[in-house]
């Protein structure tokens, strides 16, 4: 059963949110969705770059009230 997990990385800077996501990825199962919350716009751009590079999937990227929500799916 796929799960959705939230990683709250608000307030930290690049590459903090990416590192927190990767630590979360290690614990997750294939098919799980992880949502990263970040106040750092650079990370919102860099996380999808990393996801594509290593072969996971970006589900969505959005911004609301200064917080970026990047939802990704673990593919392997």
């Amino acid at each position: 059963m796929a799960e959705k997990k939230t990683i709250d990385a608000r307030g930290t800077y690049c590459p903090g949110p990416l590192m927190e996501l990767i630590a979360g990825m290690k614990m997750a199962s294939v098919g799980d969705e992880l949502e990263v919350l970040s106040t750092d716009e650079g990370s919102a751009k860099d996380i999808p770059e990393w996801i594509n590079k290593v072969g996971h999937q970006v589900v969505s990227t959005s911004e609301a009230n200064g917080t970026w929500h990047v939802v990704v799916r673990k593919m392997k």
Partner: protein
Amino acid sequence: MSSSKISIMVVTGSRERLQMAAMVASVGAVSGSEVTVFLSMNALPYFVKGHGAAAPAEGEFGRLMEKKNVPAFKELFQKAVELGDAKIYPCSMAMDVLAAKREDLEPYLGEPLGLTKFLSDASEGQIWSF
């Protein structure tokens, strides 16, 4: 996933450069590159247990980083090892000068490495120095 090689030589004691070196090491390592870090000169003392982890700022940006919640450079180097299998080696010459032993250093560092070995390992791929 790429299988490129990144070799990083760190000799600085400044906050900005240590931060950038740690960023390259951690992001490179978690992106599938084989990362090797060689710590010498003013960089190595920060990895001696009990030594302060706050590096002096070189300029305005370093002072600004101090006030913001930027990930600590030592934490990023450790994540490079734990999440991306980076190898971080203390320079054997710098250890001799500091009179430091392997057990005096942070446990996530590898065995002391000589410059000859680092240079031969770094003969392929990208080389960065800070």
